[in-house]
C-alpha cells in the first residue's frame, strides 16, 4: 500500500494537469481529503456522475426543489414515485427499509394499505412489476410530455399525451397524497436534460396541493456527499471570491449573485453577450472593459455561452474555485479555468 501511495504521489507531483475523479463510493472524510489534495495540486476534481445529476443536486442543495431524508420517507410517505429508477436492482434495500414495505411513525399499516408505489419507466423493470397497476410506460425521451400531462390533469384539463384515463388516474393519486416522494433516476434526468425547470414546475404545482419531496436515486453510495461537500460554505463561490485578487466573470452577473463586499474587490473583467445594468451602472467592476462586451453577437455567438455547459461542469470541479480560496496565493497571471 505504501508503495502504491508513493507511486500515486509521484505521478500526481509530476503531472501538469491532474484530474482526481471517482469519489462517489468514498466516505466524506476521503472526499474531504481528496478536495484538499486538489487544492494543493491545483487539480480538477470530479465524480463520475453525469452532468444532469449535478443540475438536480444543485437545485436540491440550493432549496429550489424540496427534499427530505429517507427516515422521513419511512415515517410519513404514502405515495412513492419511482421515475426512471429501479431500486429493486440499483438500491436493493430501498423498498424494504424506507419507501414501500416498512412501517413508519404515521404509516403503521405499511405497503398496499397505506403506501402506494408508482413506477414511471421506459421498460418494465423489477420495480415496475412490483407496482403492477401503477406502472406508467413512456417512450424514451417522453418525460417532458409526461410531466405536461400530469400538470394538465392537476389543473383539471384533459392531458394531450399518453392514455388519458390512466393519466387522470395518476393525477388523482397524486392529488390525494398526504406526503408524496418522487425518486428520479438518471433515466429521467437524461430525458429532461435542459428542461429540468419543467420538473421544478411540477414540484411547485404538487406542493400547492399536497406535500411532495424529491430524493434523487444516485447510482453510487456517496455521490450526494460529494455534491454536498462541493457546496459546503468553504467551497462556495462567495468564499472563493473573498480570497481571490482577480476574477474572470463569464456570462454571469456578479453584482446580482455575489455579496457586494466580495464583488467590489474581485470583479476585474467580464465577458458577456450583453451589458448588464448592474455591471455598467454599479462601478464595482473596475475593469469592465478589459475583455469588452460582445455587443452585437447573439448569445450563441458568444464564446462564453458556447461553453456554457462546460462552465457548468467547471463549477463542479473545485480546482479553480479552491485555488482561489487560498489567501496566500497570488493568481495575478495564473488564472486557469480548466474547461475541457
Amino acid at each position, binding site marked *: 500500500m505504501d508503495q502504491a501511495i508513493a507511486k500515486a504521489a509521484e505521478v500526481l507531483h509530476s503531472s501538469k494537469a491532474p484530474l482526481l475523479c471517482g469519489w462517489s463510493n468514498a466516505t466524506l472524510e476521503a472526499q474531504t481529503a481528496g478536495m484538499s489534495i486538489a487544492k494543493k495540486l491545483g487539480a480538477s476534481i470530479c465524480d*463520475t*456522475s*453525469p*452532468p444532469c445529476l449535478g443540475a438536480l443536486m444543485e437545485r436540491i442543495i440550493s432549496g429550489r426543489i424540496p427534499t427530505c431524508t429517507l427516515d422521513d420517507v419511512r415515517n410519513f410517505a404514502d405515495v412513492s414515485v419511482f421515475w*426512471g429508477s*429501479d431500486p*429493486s*436492482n*440499483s438500491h*436493493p434495500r430501498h423498498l424494504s427499509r424506507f419507501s414501500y414495505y416498512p412501517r413508519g411513525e404515521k404509516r403503521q399499516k405499511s405497503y398496499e394499505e397505506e403506501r402506494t408505489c408508482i413506477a414511471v419507466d*421506459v*421498460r*418494465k*423493470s423489477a420495480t415496475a412489476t412490483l407496482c403492477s397497476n401503477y406502472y406508467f*410506460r413512456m417512450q*424514451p*425521451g417522453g418525460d417532458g410530455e409526461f410531466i405536461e400531462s400530469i400538470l394538465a390533469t392537476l389543473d383539471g384539463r384533459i392531458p394531450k399525451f399518453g392514455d388519458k384515463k390512466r393519466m387522470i388516474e395518476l393525477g388523482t393519486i397524486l392529488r390525494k397524497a398526504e406526503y408524496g416522494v418522487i425518486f428520479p*433516476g*438518471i*433515466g*429521467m*434526468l*437524461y*430525458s429532461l436534460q435542459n428542461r429540468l425547470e419543467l420538473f421544478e414546475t411540477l414540484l411547485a404545482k404538487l406542493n400547492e396541493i399536497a406535500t411532495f419531496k424529491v430524493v434523487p436515486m444516485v*447510482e453510487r453510495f456517496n455521490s450526494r456527499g460529494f455534491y454536498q461537500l462541493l457546496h459546503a460554505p468553504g467551497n462556495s463561490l462567495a468564499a472563493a471570491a473573498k480570497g481571490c485578487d482577480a476574477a474572470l466573470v463569464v456570462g454571469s452577473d456578479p453584482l446580482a449573485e455575489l455579496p457586494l463586499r466580495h464583488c467590489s474587490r474581485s470583479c476585474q473583467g467580464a465577458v458577456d453577450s450583453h451589458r448588464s445594468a448592474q455591471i455598467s451602472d454599479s462601478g464595482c467592476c473596475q475593469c469592465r472593459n478589459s475583455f469588452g462586451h460582445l455587443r452585437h453577437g447573439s448569445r450563441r455567438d458568444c464564446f462564453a455561452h458556447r461553453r456554457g455547459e462546460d462552465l457548468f461542469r467547471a463549477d463542479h470541479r473545485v480546482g479553480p474555485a479552491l485555488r482561489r480560496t487560498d489567501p496566500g496565493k497570488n493568481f495575478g497571471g495564473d488564472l486557469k479555468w480548466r474547461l475541457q
Partner: protein
Amino acid sequence: METAVTIVTFRDIFQDEAAKKSKFTDEFRDLCARILLDKQDMASLGLKDGQKVRVQSEVGSVIVIAKTSDDDPHPGLAFMTFSPWSNQLAGEDACMSGARIAAKLSPSDESVTQISELLQRMRAQGIST
C-alpha cells in the same frame, strides 16, 4: 440484414454482484455482453435467443448475445445493462444507466467481445490521442 434501434441502458443487481467478485469472469461477461430485443426485431434480424449480434453505434461496436425481452412489445427499442460493453457504444454525454444510444444491429458470426479486448481498445485510443 441491419436494424436500427435505440438502446436504453439499465442496472441489474446480478451483474452488480458479479462485478463485485471480478470483472474478468465469464459470469460477468455473460450478464453484460447481451442485448434484450423485442420479438419483432429478433424476427427481422433472423435471430434466435442466444445468437450473436454486432451492435454498432457512432462511436464504437461490440459483439454481444441477443435475447428476447420479456417486456411488453417495444419494437425499435433495445435494452443493455450498464457495463463496459454498453459504454463502448456511448458517446461523451451518454454514460451511466438510463442513457439512450442510437445503434444498428446485424447478425454476426464473430465471438463475443471480451473485456480484455475492450481494455486493449482503450489503451490504443489513449495512445492515438
